[in-house]
């Protein structure tokens, strides 16, 4: 049990409308080991951000419903009270949001925002907390840390704000850091700086990271294991090398081939036909079937289950029932 910092079992998050309940995350399982970097990849609407919000207990109870188990060090967070969640949030599990521009409060100084979690969780006095804040700002590579704590978010650039967000998330030394598209809003040269910083912090502090992204390049660079999501379900899981070199699910294969490679030029890009399904518009059978090149009758009527391979790779596809099935030979792959 101790080898898993978080163990999600049968998580189902749905949003309620007047007369309907729309499942956005539909029965997913995954786990993260201490110090591990897990990537969650998928396109918009696949439920990756909602998964993060569910783990953080940030799904609004009035309009959303979270079912299943989220075991954080053995404790089921789905059942946890709001008071208990407040103790965990920002202390043991912290989150970095996508938008560095909007996730800082414009009317408080950087310092005030940084020390908030220390004051609440650790009950530190202001002086001690501020000293720690300055130390954290230095750790994330920000210059003039002593002056920065007295400045407001608008005085900082996007890259600097994202560093502040990371400092804020790391200040209580959480065991799990959830990063939801942390570099999507940034330019590539700044992205490189931030990724490098996150890798360094992961190594030095042994914080586990749940990295949510749509950028396969970021995954290849940062993560040890990958979970691929499609329409609210996990369609493939495996270590990063397996996923990139021997992807099995037709969606994963298509996704990897759709990205133009900067190193080689191809005449024509591979593209998956059709559109990403909207949440709620779920059909019978495999959700990917309408876009899949290998679709057969069974896919349209029965939803495939995850089948595991010996190397730990898991695939939700009828082509690989019970961990068997010929390795996916696609002429376009070679």
């Amino acid at each position, binding site marked *: 049990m101790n080898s898993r910092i978080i163990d999600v079992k049968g998580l189902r998050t749905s949003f309620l409308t007047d007369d309907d309940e729309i499942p956005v995350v539909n029965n997913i399982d995954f786990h993260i080991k201490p110090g591990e970097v897990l990537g969650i990849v998928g396109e*918009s609407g696949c439920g990756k951000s909602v998964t993060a919000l569910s783990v953080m207990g940030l799904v609004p109870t009035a309009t959303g419903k979270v079912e299943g188990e989220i075991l954080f060090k053995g404790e089921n967070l789905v059942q946890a009270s709001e008071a208990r969640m407040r103790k965990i949030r920002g202390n043991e599990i912290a989150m970095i949001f996508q938008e560095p521009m909007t996730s800082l409060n414009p009317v408080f100084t950087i310092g005030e925002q940084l020390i908030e979690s220390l004051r609440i969780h650790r009950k530190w006095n202001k002086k001690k907390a501020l000293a720690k804040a300055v130390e954290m700002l230095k750790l994330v590579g920000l210059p003039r840390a002593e002056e920065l704590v007295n400045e407001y978010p608008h005085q900082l650039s996007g890259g600097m704000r994202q560093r502040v967000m990371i400092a804020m998330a790391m200040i209580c030394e959480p065991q799990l850091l959830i990063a939801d598209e942390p570099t999507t809003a940034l330019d590539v040269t700044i*992205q490189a700086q931030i990724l490098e910083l996150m890798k360094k912090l992961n190594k030095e502090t042994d914080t586990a990271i749940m990295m949510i992204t749509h950028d396969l390049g970021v995954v*290849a660079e940062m993560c040890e294991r990958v979970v691929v999501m499609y329409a609210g379900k996990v369609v493939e899981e495996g270590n990063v090398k397996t996923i*990139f*070199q021997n992807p099995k699910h037709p969606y994963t294969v298509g996704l990897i081939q*759709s990205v*133009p490679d*900067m190193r080689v030029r191809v005449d024509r*890009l591979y593209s998956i036909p059709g559109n990403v399904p909207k949440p709620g518009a779920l059909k019978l059978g495999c959700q990917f079937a309408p876009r899949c090149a290998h679709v057969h009758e069974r896919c349209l009527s029965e939803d495939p289950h995850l089948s595991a391979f010996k190397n730990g790779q898991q695939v939700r596809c009828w082509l690989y029932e019970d961990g068997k099935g010929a390795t996916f030979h696609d002429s376009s792959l070679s």
Partner: protein
Amino acid sequence: MTQVLVKVENLKKHFPIKGGLLGKTVGEVKAVDGVSFFINKGETLGLVGESGCGKSTTGKILLRLLEPSEGKIYFEGEDITTLSSAEMRKKRREMQMVFQDPFASLNPRHTVEKILEEPLLVHGVKSRAERRKRVKELLEVVGLSSYHAKRYPHQFSGGQRQRIGIARALAVNPKLIIADEPVSALDVSIQSQVLNLLQDLQKEFDLTYLFIAHDLGVVRHISDRVGVMYLGNIVELSDSEQLYKNPKHPYTQALLSAVPIPDVEYQKERIILQGEVPSPSNPPKGCPFHTRCPKAMDTCVSVRPLLKEIEPGHYAACHLYE
């Protein structure tokens, strides 16, 4: 025989900064600061750079959606910077634009038919039946169906909306299409569909593209030649094969090395740039990149390097190659 379709000389756009009690001009944002390039007929020129480097502004000036502060734009040999706005409107029949955000660039209260008819109406297709016929054609060309004509933009997904935006640009049979980040708002699997469509259309209608994007992989895929912009200047311009294999300018080298490659085996030397892009309202003297350049020398601080041909067809603005 390659023909030059567009030629731009020393293009500048300085936006005034108003301030003080009387709204006096207190400074200038040098968004585009002396850019020159040309685009051959039928080719795709890619413009890459980070946010704020002036690539979108350059695209808008080309259509004179923004007036240049200085410089000349020649379209098929004719200087279009001196045209009156009525003449320019006619000229835009030959040059069209595809915008970044497919959610914001289509009027939500118009049907697709109305959106696509509008450019035809403006450019003098009087007969309604003819316009309707053209709309149907256009929808099919971009991979939608004629029954989509009666729908509203909100009924389409992002990728489909971008197709409508492309159809709108194609409506008047332009020669040049300026595509400003046309795929950056789309999901990866949809992005490749739209890129393939753009390539097919180029072949079919002999189009010339100015393709503006920040994604280096996408730009390489679609472009014949690529220009790299930094702080309102083109720092390197070359055949795309050359540029990606053998980048000359230290900024291009750093930019290329910063892109995460979706390949776990790939090992690379990453050049991590320090600091951030300086503000274009107060750009550094000398080479605009010298504040972050790992190879900066004394001359870089004081003398601005000019874009020079250092190998056939390969231009760079850097003192290292003098």
